Protein backbone atom coordinates (compact mmCIF):
# COMPACT_ATOMS: atom_id res chain seq x y z
CA UNK A 1 0.00 0.00 0.00
CA UNK A 2 2.72 2.44 1.00
CA UNK A 3 4.74 4.02 -1.77
CA UNK A 4 8.29 2.81 -1.13
CA UNK A 5 9.90 5.67 -3.09
CA UNK A 6 9.19 7.97 -0.17
CA UNK A 7 10.23 7.97 3.44
CA UNK A 8 7.44 7.25 5.93
CA UNK A 9 4.93 10.13 5.71
CA UNK A 10 6.73 11.71 2.75
CA UNK A 11 9.15 14.00 4.62
CA UNK A 12 12.69 12.88 5.40
CA UNK A 13 13.61 12.21 9.01
CA UNK A 14 15.76 15.32 9.42
CA UNK A 15 12.91 17.53 8.27
CA UNK A 16 10.47 15.83 10.61
CA UNK A 17 12.95 16.29 13.42
CA UNK A 18 13.21 20.00 12.65
CA UNK A 19 9.42 20.32 12.62
CA UNK A 20 9.10 18.39 15.88
CA UNK A 21 11.53 20.77 17.51
CA UNK A 22 9.36 23.68 16.38
CA UNK A 23 6.26 21.89 17.68
CA UNK A 24 7.91 21.24 21.05
CA UNK A 25 8.84 24.89 21.33
CA UNK A 26 5.30 25.86 20.38
CA UNK A 27 3.90 23.57 23.05
CA UNK A 28 6.30 25.02 25.60
CA UNK A 29 5.19 28.57 24.79
CA UNK A 30 1.46 28.29 24.04
CA UNK A 31 0.29 30.68 21.35
CA UNK A 32 3.80 31.77 20.33
CA UNK A 33 4.48 31.54 16.60
CA UNK A 34 7.61 29.45 16.11
CA UNK A 35 9.38 29.95 12.78
CA UNK A 36 10.31 26.73 10.99
CA UNK A 37 11.89 25.87 7.66
CA UNK A 38 8.74 24.99 5.78
CA UNK A 39 9.34 22.61 2.87
CA UNK A 40 7.83 22.56 -0.57
CA UNK A 41 5.05 20.02 -0.50
CA UNK A 42 3.50 18.29 -3.50
CA UNK A 43 0.44 20.51 -3.31
CA UNK A 44 -0.13 24.24 -3.72
CA UNK A 45 0.14 26.72 -0.87
CA UNK A 46 -3.29 27.29 0.57
CA UNK A 47 -4.15 23.61 0.39
CA UNK A 48 -2.78 22.88 3.81
CA UNK A 49 0.97 22.57 3.31
CA UNK A 50 1.59 23.68 6.90
CA UNK A 51 -0.91 21.25 8.35
CA UNK A 52 0.43 18.41 6.22
CA UNK A 53 3.97 19.00 7.44
CA UNK A 54 2.86 19.03 11.07
CA UNK A 55 0.82 15.88 10.49
CA UNK A 56 3.77 14.20 8.77
CA UNK A 57 6.01 15.05 11.71
CA UNK A 58 3.50 13.68 14.24
CA UNK A 59 2.36 10.50 12.46
CA UNK A 60 3.47 7.08 13.65
CA UNK A 61 2.62 3.80 11.88
CA UNK A 62 0.09 3.03 14.65
CA UNK A 63 -1.87 6.22 14.18
CA UNK A 64 -5.38 6.44 12.79
CA UNK A 65 -5.80 9.53 10.66
CA UNK A 66 -8.91 11.59 10.02
CA UNK A 67 -8.86 14.56 7.66
CA UNK A 68 -11.66 17.10 7.49
CA UNK A 69 -12.24 20.12 5.31
CA UNK A 70 -14.77 22.63 6.67
CA UNK A 71 -16.14 19.77 8.76
CA UNK A 72 -16.57 17.38 5.83
CA UNK A 73 -14.65 14.14 5.32
CA UNK A 74 -15.51 13.84 1.65
CA UNK A 75 -14.49 17.11 0.01
CA UNK A 76 -11.49 17.50 -2.32
CA UNK A 77 -9.03 18.83 0.23
CA UNK A 78 -9.85 16.18 2.81
CA UNK A 79 -9.84 13.31 0.33
CA UNK A 80 -6.55 14.41 -1.26
CA UNK A 81 -4.68 14.76 2.02
CA UNK A 82 -6.11 11.52 3.40
CA UNK A 83 -5.03 9.67 0.25
CA UNK A 84 -1.62 11.33 0.40
CA UNK A 85 -0.93 9.89 3.84
CA UNK A 86 -2.50 6.54 3.01
CA UNK A 87 -0.03 6.28 0.16
CA UNK A 88 3.09 7.71 1.74
CA UNK A 89 2.62 6.48 5.32
CA UNK A 90 0.22 3.57 4.98
CA UNK A 91 -1.57 4.56 8.18
CA UNK A 92 -5.12 3.56 8.99
CA UNK A 93 -7.72 6.18 8.20
CA UNK A 94 -11.16 6.80 9.58
CA UNK A 95 -14.02 9.23 9.34
CA UNK A 96 -15.12 8.73 12.94
CA UNK A 97 -13.80 11.45 15.24
CA UNK A 98 -13.65 9.14 18.25
CA UNK A 99 -11.55 6.52 16.43
CA UNK A 100 -8.91 8.94 15.17
CA UNK A 101 -5.67 9.55 17.02
CA UNK A 102 -4.64 12.40 14.72
CA UNK A 103 -7.09 14.72 13.00
CA UNK A 104 -5.98 17.22 10.40
CA UNK A 105 -8.61 19.88 10.01
CA UNK A 106 -9.27 22.76 7.72
CA UNK A 107 -11.26 25.45 9.51
CA UNK A 108 -13.45 23.39 11.87
CA UNK A 109 -13.24 21.66 15.22
CA UNK A 110 -15.24 18.39 15.23
CA UNK A 111 -18.56 18.50 17.07
CA UNK A 112 -17.79 15.33 19.03
CA UNK A 113 -15.74 16.14 22.09
CA UNK A 114 -12.04 15.40 21.67
CA UNK A 115 -10.27 13.17 24.15
CA UNK A 116 -6.89 12.90 25.80
CA UNK A 117 -4.27 11.54 23.44
CA UNK A 118 -5.79 12.95 20.29
CA UNK A 119 -3.92 15.52 18.21
CA UNK A 120 -5.79 18.13 16.22
CA UNK A 121 -3.75 19.74 13.42
CA UNK A 122 -5.03 22.99 11.92
CA UNK A 123 -4.19 24.40 8.52
CA UNK A 124 -3.41 28.08 8.90
CA UNK A 125 -3.29 30.55 6.01
CA UNK A 126 -2.15 33.64 7.95
CA UNK A 127 -0.86 33.00 11.45
CA UNK A 128 -0.40 36.65 12.42
CA UNK A 129 -3.55 38.04 14.06
CA UNK A 130 -2.26 41.60 13.75
CA UNK A 131 -1.34 41.31 10.07
CA UNK A 132 -4.10 43.38 8.50
CA UNK A 133 -3.66 46.16 11.03
CA UNK A 134 0.12 46.31 11.08
CA UNK A 135 1.82 45.24 7.87
CA UNK A 136 5.39 45.22 9.24
CA UNK A 137 6.51 41.81 10.47
CA UNK A 138 9.28 43.39 12.59
CA UNK A 139 6.66 45.53 14.31
CA UNK A 140 4.16 42.72 14.95
CA UNK A 141 6.91 40.58 16.43
CA UNK A 142 7.85 43.45 18.70
CA UNK A 143 4.21 43.86 19.70
CA UNK A 144 3.98 40.16 20.63
CA UNK A 145 7.25 40.40 22.51
CA UNK A 146 6.15 43.42 24.53
CA UNK A 147 2.54 42.27 24.84
CA UNK A 148 1.24 45.41 23.12
CA UNK A 149 -2.15 44.19 22.05
CA UNK A 150 -4.19 47.40 21.93
CA UNK A 151 -4.30 47.13 18.17
CA UNK A 152 -6.29 43.92 18.09
CA UNK A 153 -9.10 45.71 19.89
CA UNK A 154 -9.00 48.43 17.24
CA UNK A 155 -10.07 45.72 14.79
CA UNK A 156 -13.00 44.78 17.02
CA UNK A 157 -13.81 48.47 17.55
CA UNK A 158 -13.98 48.96 13.79
CA UNK A 159 -16.36 46.02 13.53
CA UNK A 160 -18.77 47.50 16.05
CA UNK A 161 -18.47 51.00 14.57
CA UNK A 162 -19.34 49.68 11.12
CA UNK A 163 -21.79 46.87 11.84
CA UNK A 164 -23.13 47.60 15.30
CA UNK A 165 -21.76 44.33 16.62
CA UNK A 166 -18.52 42.36 16.43
CA UNK A 167 -19.00 41.07 12.91
CA UNK A 168 -15.81 39.00 12.77
CA UNK A 169 -17.27 35.53 12.41
CA UNK A 170 -14.18 33.46 11.70
CA UNK A 171 -10.49 33.68 12.61
CA UNK A 172 -11.70 35.41 15.77
CA UNK A 173 -8.64 36.48 17.80
CA UNK A 174 -8.01 34.79 21.12
CA UNK A 175 -5.65 35.31 24.02
CA UNK A 176 -3.78 32.25 25.23
CA UNK A 177 -3.09 31.83 28.95
CA UNK A 178 -3.27 35.60 29.38
CA UNK A 179 -0.18 36.13 27.25
CA UNK A 180 -0.08 35.68 23.48
CA UNK A 181 -2.81 36.86 21.15
CA UNK A 182 -3.34 34.12 18.58
CA UNK A 183 -5.20 33.62 15.32
CA UNK A 184 -7.08 30.34 15.76
CA UNK A 185 -7.00 29.80 11.94
CA UNK A 186 -10.24 30.58 10.10
CA UNK A 187 -12.48 28.40 12.26
CA UNK A 188 -15.96 29.88 12.82
CA UNK A 189 -16.18 31.73 16.10
CA UNK A 190 -18.77 29.10 17.03
CA UNK A 191 -15.79 26.80 17.58
CA UNK A 192 -13.76 29.25 19.67
CA UNK A 193 -15.01 28.02 23.06
CA UNK A 194 -13.84 24.51 22.13
CA UNK A 195 -10.25 25.77 21.89
CA UNK A 196 -10.13 26.37 25.61
CA UNK A 197 -9.45 23.54 28.03
CA UNK A 198 -9.47 20.92 25.31
CA UNK A 199 -8.02 17.56 26.43
CA UNK A 200 -6.50 17.15 22.94
CA UNK A 201 -3.22 18.65 21.79
CA UNK A 202 -3.88 21.36 19.20
CA UNK A 203 -1.17 22.18 16.65
CA UNK A 204 -1.30 24.93 14.04
CA UNK A 205 0.82 24.83 10.89
CA UNK A 206 1.21 27.66 8.39
CA UNK A 207 3.27 26.42 5.44
CA UNK A 208 3.60 29.53 3.32
CA UNK A 209 4.20 31.78 6.33
CA UNK A 210 6.53 29.19 7.90
CA UNK A 211 5.08 29.30 11.38
CA UNK A 212 3.98 26.64 13.85
CA UNK A 213 2.13 27.31 17.07
CA UNK A 214 0.37 25.14 19.56
CA UNK A 215 -2.14 24.83 22.36
CA UNK A 216 -1.18 22.09 24.80
CA UNK A 217 -4.04 20.16 26.41
CA UNK A 218 -6.08 22.11 28.94
CA UNK A 219 -4.83 25.51 27.90
CA UNK A 220 -6.93 28.49 28.88
CA UNK A 221 -8.02 30.38 25.78
CA UNK A 222 -10.14 33.53 25.89
CA UNK A 223 -11.85 35.14 22.90
CA UNK A 224 -11.23 38.90 22.95
CA UNK A 225 -14.14 41.28 23.32
CA UNK A 226 -15.36 44.53 24.87
CA UNK A 227 -17.06 44.80 28.26
CA UNK A 228 -20.23 46.12 26.65
CA UNK A 229 -19.99 43.89 23.57
CA UNK A 230 -19.12 40.44 24.93
CA UNK A 231 -17.99 37.57 22.71
CA UNK A 232 -20.84 35.45 21.35
CA UNK A 233 -20.33 32.24 19.43
CA UNK A 234 -22.78 32.31 16.55
CA UNK A 235 -24.39 29.85 14.15
CA UNK A 236 -27.31 29.83 11.75
CA UNK A 237 -30.53 29.90 13.82
CA UNK A 238 -31.80 26.54 12.53
CA UNK A 239 -31.70 22.84 13.24
CA UNK A 240 -29.93 20.48 10.88
CA UNK A 241 -32.36 19.44 8.14
CA UNK A 242 -30.86 15.96 7.91
CA UNK A 243 -30.29 14.91 11.51
CA UNK A 244 -32.23 17.53 13.44
CA UNK A 245 -29.28 18.57 15.63
CA UNK A 246 -29.85 21.98 17.22
CA UNK A 247 -26.41 22.52 18.67
CA UNK A 248 -24.10 21.89 15.72
CA UNK A 249 -22.54 24.34 13.29
CA UNK A 250 -24.54 24.45 10.05
CA UNK A 251 -23.77 24.90 6.38
CA UNK A 252 -26.36 26.53 4.19
CA UNK A 253 -26.95 24.54 1.02
CA UNK A 254 -28.78 26.06 -1.94
CA UNK A 255 -31.01 23.36 -3.38
CA UNK A 256 -32.59 25.02 -6.45
CA UNK A 257 -32.82 28.36 -8.21
CA UNK A 258 -36.18 29.17 -6.62
CA UNK A 259 -34.66 30.25 -3.32
CA UNK A 260 -34.81 26.77 -1.88
CA UNK A 261 -32.21 26.04 0.78
CA UNK A 262 -31.46 23.66 3.56
CA UNK A 263 -29.20 23.76 6.59
CA UNK A 264 -27.03 20.76 7.29
CA UNK A 265 -24.36 20.00 9.86
CA UNK A 266 -20.96 21.04 8.57
CA UNK A 267 -19.48 18.09 10.48
CA UNK A 268 -20.45 15.17 8.21
CA UNK A 269 -19.30 12.50 10.62
CA UNK A 270 -21.40 13.99 13.42
CA UNK A 271 -24.45 14.22 11.13
CA UNK A 272 -24.12 10.69 9.79
CA UNK A 273 -23.68 9.23 13.26
CA UNK A 274 -26.87 10.94 14.38
CA UNK A 275 -28.81 9.84 11.32
CA UNK A 276 -27.71 6.26 11.88
CA UNK A 277 -28.84 6.54 15.48
CA UNK A 278 -32.31 7.35 14.21
CA UNK A 279 -32.40 11.15 14.56
CA UNK A 280 -34.28 12.79 11.72
CA UNK A 281 -34.40 16.39 10.56
CA UNK A 282 -37.08 18.22 8.59
CA UNK A 283 -35.81 17.03 5.20
CA UNK A 284 -34.04 13.88 6.34
CA UNK A 285 -34.59 10.36 5.02
CA UNK A 286 -34.42 7.45 7.48
CA UNK A 287 -31.18 5.49 7.16
CA UNK A 288 -31.62 1.80 6.43
CA UNK A 289 -29.58 -0.47 8.67
CA UNK A 290 -26.73 -2.10 6.79
CA UNK A 291 -26.30 0.77 4.35
CA UNK A 292 -28.60 2.09 1.62
Amino acid sequence: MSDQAYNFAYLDEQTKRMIRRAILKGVAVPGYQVPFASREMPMPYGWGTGGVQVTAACLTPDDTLKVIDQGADDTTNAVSIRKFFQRTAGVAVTEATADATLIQTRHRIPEAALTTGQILVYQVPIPEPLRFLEPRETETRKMHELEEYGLIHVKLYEDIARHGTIATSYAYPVKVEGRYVMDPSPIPKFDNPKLSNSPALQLFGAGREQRIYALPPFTHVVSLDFDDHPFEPSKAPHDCDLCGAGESYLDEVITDDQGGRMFVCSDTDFCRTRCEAGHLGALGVPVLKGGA
Partner: protein
Amino acid sequence: MGAVDLSIWAKVNADKPLLSVQGLSKNYGSRIGCADVSFDLFPGEVLGIVGESGSGKSTLLSCLAGHLAPDTGRVIFETAQGPRDTVTMVEAERRKMARTDWAFVHQNPRDGLRMGVSAGGNVGERLMAVGARHYGDIRATAVDWLGRVEIAADRIDDRPRAFSGGMQQRLQIARNLVTAPRLVFMDEPTGGLDVSVQARLLDLLRGLVREMGLSAIIVTHDLAVVRLLADRLMVMKGGHVVEQGLTDQVLDDPQHSYTQLLVSSVLQV
Protein backbone atom coordinates in the same frame (compact mmCIF):
# COMPACT_ATOMS: atom_id res chain seq x y z
CA MET B 1 -7.74 83.92 31.90
CA GLY B 2 -6.53 84.18 35.48
CA ALA B 3 -8.51 81.10 36.53
CA VAL B 4 -7.09 79.07 33.68
CA ASP B 5 -3.58 80.09 34.58
CA LEU B 6 -4.09 79.03 38.16
CA SER B 7 -5.20 75.54 37.16
CA ILE B 8 -2.09 75.09 35.06
CA TRP B 9 0.30 76.21 37.75
CA ALA B 10 -1.44 74.04 40.28
CA LYS B 11 -0.65 71.00 38.13
CA VAL B 12 2.96 71.63 37.40
CA ASN B 13 5.96 71.51 39.59
CA ALA B 14 7.95 74.28 38.02
CA ASP B 15 11.10 73.69 40.06
CA LYS B 16 12.04 70.41 38.45
CA PRO B 17 12.63 70.03 34.73
CA LEU B 18 10.26 67.57 33.03
CA LEU B 19 12.92 66.66 30.52
CA SER B 20 16.61 67.20 30.98
CA VAL B 21 18.92 66.60 28.04
CA GLN B 22 22.64 66.37 28.70
CA GLY B 23 25.36 66.19 26.06
CA LEU B 24 23.28 64.41 23.44
CA SER B 25 25.15 63.44 20.25
CA LYS B 26 24.25 61.33 17.28
CA ASN B 27 26.50 60.67 14.30
CA TYR B 28 25.70 58.98 11.05
CA GLY B 29 29.07 57.43 10.37
CA SER B 30 31.49 60.32 10.07
CA ARG B 31 28.68 62.80 9.47
CA ILE B 32 27.24 64.69 12.38
CA GLY B 33 23.52 64.29 13.09
CA CYS B 34 23.47 66.45 16.15
CA ALA B 35 26.29 67.21 18.55
CA ASP B 36 26.46 67.92 22.25
CA VAL B 37 22.93 69.21 22.75
CA SER B 38 21.92 70.07 26.30
CA PHE B 39 18.80 71.76 27.60
CA ASP B 40 16.11 71.54 30.25
CA LEU B 41 12.41 71.60 29.52
CA PHE B 42 10.16 72.60 32.38
CA PRO B 43 6.53 71.52 32.88
CA GLY B 44 4.10 73.57 30.83
CA GLU B 45 6.85 74.95 28.65
CA VAL B 46 6.95 74.89 24.87
CA LEU B 47 10.38 74.68 23.28
CA GLY B 48 10.86 75.47 19.63
CA ILE B 49 13.76 74.05 17.63
CA VAL B 50 14.45 75.89 14.39
CA GLY B 51 17.09 75.58 11.75
CA GLU B 52 17.53 74.89 8.08
CA SER B 53 17.08 71.50 6.41
CA GLY B 54 19.80 69.11 7.48
CA SER B 55 20.64 71.04 10.64
CA GLY B 56 19.87 68.03 12.85
CA LYS B 57 16.49 69.12 14.19
CA SER B 58 14.68 65.94 13.30
CA THR B 59 17.60 63.76 14.38
CA LEU B 60 17.51 65.46 17.75
CA LEU B 61 13.76 65.00 18.06
CA SER B 62 13.99 61.32 17.10
CA CYS B 63 16.68 60.80 19.73
CA LEU B 64 14.58 62.52 22.36
CA ALA B 65 11.48 60.51 21.47
CA GLY B 66 13.39 57.23 21.49
CA HIS B 67 13.02 56.51 17.79
CA LEU B 68 16.78 56.69 17.37
CA ALA B 69 19.43 55.65 19.85
CA PRO B 70 21.84 58.52 20.51
CA ASP B 71 25.58 57.79 20.54
CA THR B 72 26.25 59.66 23.75
CA GLY B 73 24.30 61.73 26.22
CA ARG B 74 21.42 61.37 28.59
CA VAL B 75 17.72 62.16 28.24
CA ILE B 76 16.25 62.31 31.71
CA PHE B 77 12.49 62.35 31.93
CA GLU B 78 10.60 63.05 35.14
CA THR B 79 8.36 59.97 35.31
CA ALA B 80 5.71 59.36 37.94
CA GLN B 81 8.35 57.26 39.76
CA GLY B 82 11.01 59.95 39.63
CA PRO B 83 13.63 60.93 37.04
CA ARG B 84 14.66 58.20 34.60
CA ASP B 85 17.17 58.11 31.77
CA THR B 86 15.11 57.12 28.74
CA VAL B 87 18.19 56.18 26.71
CA THR B 88 19.17 53.33 28.99
CA MET B 89 15.59 52.32 29.79
CA VAL B 90 14.48 48.91 28.51
CA GLU B 91 12.51 49.12 25.31
CA ALA B 92 9.25 47.86 26.80
CA GLU B 93 9.23 50.74 29.29
CA ARG B 94 10.16 53.29 26.66
CA ARG B 95 7.39 52.15 24.34
CA LYS B 96 4.93 52.20 27.22
CA MET B 97 5.93 55.76 27.95
CA ALA B 98 5.61 56.62 24.28
CA ARG B 99 1.93 55.74 24.40
CA THR B 100 1.09 57.20 27.80
CA ASP B 101 3.27 60.11 28.92
CA TRP B 102 4.54 61.08 25.49
CA ALA B 103 3.00 61.91 22.17
CA PHE B 104 4.57 62.30 18.76
CA VAL B 105 2.94 64.39 16.03
CA HIS B 106 4.45 63.61 12.64
CA GLN B 107 4.79 66.12 9.85
CA ASN B 108 2.91 63.85 7.50
CA PRO B 109 -0.32 62.67 9.14
CA ARG B 110 -0.06 59.46 7.13
CA ASP B 111 2.93 58.48 9.26
CA GLY B 112 1.05 59.00 12.49
CA LEU B 113 -2.41 57.75 11.56
CA ARG B 114 -3.69 54.35 10.59
CA MET B 115 -5.17 55.16 7.24
CA GLY B 116 -7.26 51.99 7.04
CA VAL B 117 -8.94 52.57 10.39
CA SER B 118 -11.82 54.98 11.06
CA ALA B 119 -11.25 58.30 12.83
CA GLY B 120 -12.83 56.91 16.00
CA GLY B 121 -10.59 53.87 15.90
CA ASN B 122 -7.56 56.06 15.43
CA VAL B 123 -8.40 58.13 18.49
CA GLY B 124 -9.36 55.04 20.47
CA GLU B 125 -6.21 53.09 19.72
CA ARG B 126 -4.13 54.65 22.48
CA LEU B 127 -6.98 54.17 24.93
CA MET B 128 -7.22 50.50 24.03
CA ALA B 129 -3.44 50.23 24.21
CA VAL B 130 -3.56 51.29 27.83
CA GLY B 131 -6.36 48.88 28.63
CA ALA B 132 -9.71 50.51 27.85
CA ARG B 133 -12.14 47.68 27.12
CA HIS B 134 -15.54 49.42 27.11
CA TYR B 135 -16.70 50.27 23.62
CA GLY B 136 -19.20 52.91 24.72
CA ASP B 137 -16.63 54.77 26.81
CA ILE B 138 -13.99 54.64 24.08
CA ARG B 139 -16.45 55.99 21.56
CA ALA B 140 -17.64 58.77 23.86
CA THR B 141 -14.05 59.85 24.45
CA ALA B 142 -13.37 59.75 20.71
CA VAL B 143 -16.40 61.94 20.01
CA ASP B 144 -15.28 64.36 22.70
CA TRP B 145 -11.78 64.60 21.26
CA LEU B 146 -12.96 65.00 17.70
CA GLY B 147 -15.01 67.92 18.94
CA ARG B 148 -11.99 69.44 20.64
CA VAL B 149 -10.04 69.39 17.39
CA GLU B 150 -13.03 70.72 15.47
CA ILE B 151 -13.95 67.60 13.54
CA ALA B 152 -17.70 67.03 13.27
CA ALA B 153 -18.93 64.05 15.30
CA ASP B 154 -20.63 62.55 12.25
CA ARG B 155 -17.23 61.99 10.64
CA ILE B 156 -16.24 59.55 13.38
CA ASP B 157 -16.68 56.46 11.22
CA ASP B 158 -14.96 57.91 8.16
CA ARG B 159 -11.45 56.84 7.37
CA PRO B 160 -8.70 59.47 7.40
CA ARG B 161 -8.39 59.03 3.63
CA ALA B 162 -11.67 60.89 3.30
CA PHE B 163 -10.30 63.83 5.31
CA SER B 164 -8.53 66.93 4.06
CA GLY B 165 -4.87 67.47 4.99
CA GLY B 166 -5.73 69.88 7.79
CA MET B 167 -8.33 67.53 9.22
CA GLN B 168 -5.90 64.63 9.09
CA GLN B 169 -3.39 66.67 11.03
CA ARG B 170 -6.00 67.62 13.64
CA LEU B 171 -7.05 63.98 13.87
CA GLN B 172 -3.44 63.03 14.47
CA ILE B 173 -3.29 65.56 17.28
CA ALA B 174 -6.49 64.21 18.84
CA ARG B 175 -5.17 60.67 18.58
CA ASN B 176 -2.01 61.68 20.39
CA LEU B 177 -3.51 63.79 23.13
CA VAL B 178 -6.34 61.43 24.08
CA THR B 179 -4.33 59.75 26.85
CA ALA B 180 -3.39 63.16 28.31
CA PRO B 181 0.37 62.94 27.74
CA ARG B 182 2.68 65.31 29.57
CA LEU B 183 5.17 65.81 26.79
CA VAL B 184 4.41 66.22 23.09
CA PHE B 185 7.00 65.99 20.33
CA MET B 186 5.98 67.74 17.15
CA ASP B 187 7.87 67.45 13.89
CA GLU B 188 6.79 70.28 11.58
CA PRO B 189 3.14 70.01 12.62
CA THR B 190 2.05 72.64 10.10
CA GLY B 191 4.25 71.57 7.20
CA GLY B 192 2.39 71.08 3.96
CA LEU B 193 -0.73 72.95 5.03
CA ASP B 194 -1.91 76.18 3.46
CA VAL B 195 -1.62 79.31 5.57
CA SER B 196 -5.26 79.69 6.64
CA VAL B 197 -5.38 76.04 7.73
CA GLN B 198 -2.01 76.54 9.44
CA ALA B 199 -3.41 79.46 11.37
CA ARG B 200 -6.40 77.45 12.62
CA LEU B 201 -4.18 74.54 13.55
CA LEU B 202 -1.79 76.78 15.45
CA ASP B 203 -4.69 78.38 17.25
CA LEU B 204 -5.98 74.98 18.21
CA LEU B 205 -2.57 73.76 19.33
CA ARG B 206 -2.00 76.86 21.41
CA GLY B 207 -5.36 76.37 23.09
CA LEU B 208 -4.73 72.69 23.83
CA VAL B 209 -1.23 73.26 25.12
CA ARG B 210 -2.39 75.97 27.50
CA GLU B 211 -5.53 74.17 28.58
CA MET B 212 -3.85 70.82 29.29
CA GLY B 213 -0.65 72.32 30.67
CA LEU B 214 1.36 70.34 28.14
CA SER B 215 5.06 70.58 27.62
CA ALA B 216 6.00 70.44 24.00
CA ILE B 217 9.04 70.34 21.78
CA ILE B 218 8.27 71.68 18.33
CA VAL B 219 10.66 71.21 15.45
CA THR B 220 9.99 73.55 12.56
CA HIS B 221 11.63 75.76 10.00
CA ASP B 222 8.71 78.17 10.15
CA LEU B 223 9.54 81.07 12.46
CA ALA B 224 5.90 82.15 12.61
CA VAL B 225 5.00 78.83 14.24
CA VAL B 226 7.53 79.22 17.03
CA ARG B 227 6.66 82.87 17.47
CA LEU B 228 3.09 81.83 18.19
CA LEU B 229 3.63 78.66 20.18
CA ALA B 230 7.06 78.51 21.74
CA ASP B 231 8.19 80.01 25.02
CA ARG B 232 11.80 79.27 24.33
CA LEU B 233 13.76 78.79 21.17
CA MET B 234 16.79 76.78 20.14
CA VAL B 235 18.50 77.54 16.83
CA MET B 236 20.45 74.70 15.23
CA LYS B 237 22.95 74.69 12.43
CA GLY B 238 25.15 71.82 11.24
CA GLY B 239 24.09 69.67 14.18
CA HIS B 240 25.07 72.24 16.79
CA VAL B 241 22.89 74.53 18.87
CA VAL B 242 24.10 77.98 17.93
CA GLU B 243 21.75 80.07 20.00
CA GLN B 244 19.02 79.58 22.55
CA GLY B 245 16.85 81.81 24.67
CA LEU B 246 13.35 83.23 25.03
CA THR B 247 11.52 83.19 21.72
CA ASP B 248 10.93 86.91 21.47
CA GLN B 249 14.47 87.65 22.55
CA VAL B 250 16.01 85.38 19.93
CA LEU B 251 13.74 86.50 17.14
CA ASP B 252 13.84 90.22 17.89
CA ASP B 253 17.49 90.46 18.84
CA PRO B 254 19.36 87.60 17.15
CA GLN B 255 23.01 87.38 18.19
CA HIS B 256 24.49 84.59 16.10
CA SER B 257 25.08 85.37 12.45
CA TYR B 258 23.08 82.34 11.34
CA THR B 259 20.09 83.38 13.43
CA GLN B 260 20.31 86.85 11.98
CA LEU B 261 20.28 85.33 8.49
CA LEU B 262 17.33 83.12 9.40
CA VAL B 263 15.29 85.98 10.82
CA SER B 264 16.05 88.26 7.94
CA SER B 265 15.13 85.56 5.42
CA VAL B 266 11.47 85.63 6.42
CA LEU B 267 9.41 87.18 3.67
CA GLN B 268 7.46 90.22 4.72
CA VAL B 269 4.06 90.52 3.12
